[in-house]
């Protein structure tokens, strides 16, 4: 029952403490004051706990690899980038798939539309791939609007297609989009008609959202000019720890991404905890029921598709805006699958799960394996073993296995490109295992009630009006819940994060779950 992390919506009577409907807790509210009050607070703590745990892990990796402060900060900066970008993408996809049951596997395409629209709008008219040279915010808004419009085009088939057909349609659309941006002929046609270009497969440069940070840190947004007051202060502070300005700048951009994640999260939690989100869930569960209860499901699906696509476009803009360069190769269908893997790990249907899924995927699964070779080298070096140059081919690596010499194979497996292949193998295996063993992911089993207020907390005054003895209802409710909670817990033993389990223990609203 996560509620929006803002307090204005439910006034003073926030009843979100799930435990409050259980017996006992009401009698002694003071004793709980030190514990997190509500589920969303606990969720935020969970997210940050995981983030810092992962930071600690990667910092340790950095230390093990003899990185200096700048090196470690750079490692953390990079994983933060991926964690944030995936968190945003997963949140957007969760709106489609987790909430509404729309099986959209064209995420990469919608991102590409957003990014390219932004790039074309903002790129300088004198660049190799000229653009309109419009201000940044025009580019961002334009990119989102265009993604939403392409989403509208995709939503029309979504109105009546089976899930697997919708998947193929969206994947096809995303490939059409990618191939279009890859086309030099398309770029030339643009140049002839509008005077702008995309430069086909070579990609294009554009100002990018990193400009925001540069403007904040340097006068005029130019790295060669004087720092601003903020820049001066931060650079000075950093210098005292021997941290380079470039690293500070990078972390500055992470702040932008962090704000992005928070904005996405707040928006989506609000949608989730609202009558609007309730209709979306109903569409996911059984569209005919939602229709028969008077909901214009087509309209809801169109809205959701457009909003989700706009968010995917924005996430893409923030991602590619970090380098200020984009190319069609970034938007292969694999990208969509990564987002799906992250969503399934986190738990489709849960926004907190989405953030955690993005976090776990972007850091541990996506970036983590890339550090394995160097850790291995370091480890072996400590043991006095030299890994040596990797063999050129798999065959050369296999041959020594005959004489029980594992090192060449290890060296081959940890050569940089090969590690990335093995990483994809790992991702595939993880996906299969999650789908087979724990399809609800880390948090997908939770009851996250779609309502703007706590439904279990009815006001006592009207309860008496209802003619029911006031006391029976809450007691019944508690009994029911504790049995439901118990069965769910036993079914679940040995899975998931302990934090999650704690959460469930204290949560009173658990009606069991679906395996």
């Amino acid at each position, binding site marked *: 029952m996560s509620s929006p992390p803002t307090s204005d*919506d439910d006034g003073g009577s926030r009843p979100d403490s799930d435990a409050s409907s259980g017996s006992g807790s009401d009698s002694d509210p003071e004793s709980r004051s030190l514990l997190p009050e509500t589920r969303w607070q606990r969720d935020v703590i969970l997210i940050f706990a995981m983030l810092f745990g992962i930071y600690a892990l990667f910092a340790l990796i950095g230390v093990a690899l003899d990185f200096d402060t700048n090196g470690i900060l750079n490692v953390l900066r990079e994983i933060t980038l991926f964690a944030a970008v995936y968190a945003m993408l997963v949140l957007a996809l969760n709106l489609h798939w987790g909430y509404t049951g729309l099986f959209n596997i064209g995420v990469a395409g919608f991102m590409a539309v957003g990014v390219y629209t932004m790039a074309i709008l903002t790129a300088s008219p004198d660049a190799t791939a000229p653009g309109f040279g419009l201000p940044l915010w025009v580019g961002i808004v334009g990119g989102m609007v265009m993604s939403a419009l392409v989403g509208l085009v995709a939503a029309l088939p979504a109105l009546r297609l089976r899930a697997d057909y919708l998947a193929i349609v969206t994947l096809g659309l995303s490939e059409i989009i990618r191939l279009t941006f890859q086309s030099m002929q398309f770029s030339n046609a643009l140049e002839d008609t509008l005077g702008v270009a995309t430069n086909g497969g070579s990609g294009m440069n554009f100002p990018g959202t990193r400009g925001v940070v540069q403007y904040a840190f340097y006068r005029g947004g130019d790295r060669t000019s004087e720092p601003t007051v903020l820049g001066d202060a931060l650079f000075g502070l950093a210098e005292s720890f021997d941290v380079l300005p470039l690293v500070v700048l990078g972390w500055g951009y992470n702040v932008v991404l962090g704000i992005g994640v928070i904005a996405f999260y707040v928006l989506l939690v609000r949608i989730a905890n609202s009558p609007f989100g309730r209709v979306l869930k109903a569409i996911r569960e059984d569209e005919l029921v939602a229709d028969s209860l*008077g909901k214009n499901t087509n309209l809801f699906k169109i809205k959701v598709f457009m909003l989700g696509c706009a968010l995917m476009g924005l996430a893409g803009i923030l991602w590619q805006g970090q380098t200020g360069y984009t190319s069609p190769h970034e938007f292969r269908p694999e990208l969509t699958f990564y987002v799906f893997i992250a969503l399934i790990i986190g738990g489709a249907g849960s926004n907190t799960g989405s953030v955690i899924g993005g976090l776990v995927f972007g850091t541990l699964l996506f970036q983590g394996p890339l550090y394995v070779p160097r850790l291995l080298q370091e480890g072996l070096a400590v043991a006095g073993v030299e890994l040596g140059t990797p063999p050129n081919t798999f065959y050369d690596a296999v041959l020594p296995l005959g004489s029980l010499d594992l090192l060449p194979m290890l060296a081959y497996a940890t050569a940089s490109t090969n590690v990335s292949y093995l990483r994809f193998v790992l991702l595939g295996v993880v996906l299969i295992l999650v789908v087979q063993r724990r399809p609800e992911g880390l948090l997908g089993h939770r009851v996250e009630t779609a309502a703007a207020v706590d439904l279990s907390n009815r006001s006592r005054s009207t309860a008496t009006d209802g003619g029911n003895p006031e006391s029976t209802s809450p007691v019944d409710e508690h009994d029911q819940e504790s049995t439901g909670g118990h069965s769910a817990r036993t079914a679940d033993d040995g899975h998931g994060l302990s934090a999650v389990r704690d959460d469930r223990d204290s949560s009173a609203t658990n009606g069991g779950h679906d395996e």
Partner: protein
Amino acid sequence: MSEQAAGSATETGDRTTTGDESTVVDSPPPLRVTDLEKHFGGITAVDGVSFDVHEGTLTGLIGPNGAGKSTAFDCITGVYTPDAGTVEFNGEDITGLEPFEICNRGLVRTFQIARELEKMTVLENLMLAPAGQRGESLWQSVTPIARRGVAAEERELRERVWETLEFFEIDHLAASYAGTLSGGQRKLLELSRALMTDPDVVLLDEPLAGVNPSLEKKLLERIHDLREEGYTFLLVEHDMDVIMTHCERVIVMHQGRKLAEGTPAEITSNERVIDAYLGGEV
């Protein structure tokens, strides 16, 4: 309709249809089906069926398996578009409208196999139903100030939902996922959810299938209570006992056509009906 949904907490309690007594005799009945036809490929599922459902009544629609009852239901509620014939609701032609449009006019249905929204709680199931909720607008749900209004409306709805749950005595299940309910409880959930749309006429598709006797009694009592309050029911049911003891009027369908119509007593003594049920030639 839409504004009412947000209305007072005691809505279900004191609701009476306007002018139950004063209705002019020739005013149209709430539901009038005329010459309804539906074909699937070469099979005629409903073959020219006409009937009226009168205000404030509990009307039964019966017939052997394959008589076309459920198809007729689906045609009335917009799941299927009938191939011929019209459906009028409160005097308005609603033939071929989408299910949501029909529901929003005050004609709601339940399903033969209870279609609870499994991974939504009982509370969510009921909260979903009321029409025209402010918070169903995307921007109202997400913008800070408008959201206060949404929350206020939600609090009001919540009371109504709890009352409905208490009325059907499933309030102890409020926080459970609908998918964990037993068959009979699902039927109660369906009915209570349908009522939350604030309908004039409720179409019940086999509401008692798979319901144990004590729950069946409870459900029927509730239906009677509601009828007293002015709701109109059309009930598809195969349990003849129920139809004969509880309905004022009975419509019998057989092989896609209307075989008979009348009071339970008339129907029980109708040889054609007996033959249809026992499988003789009609």
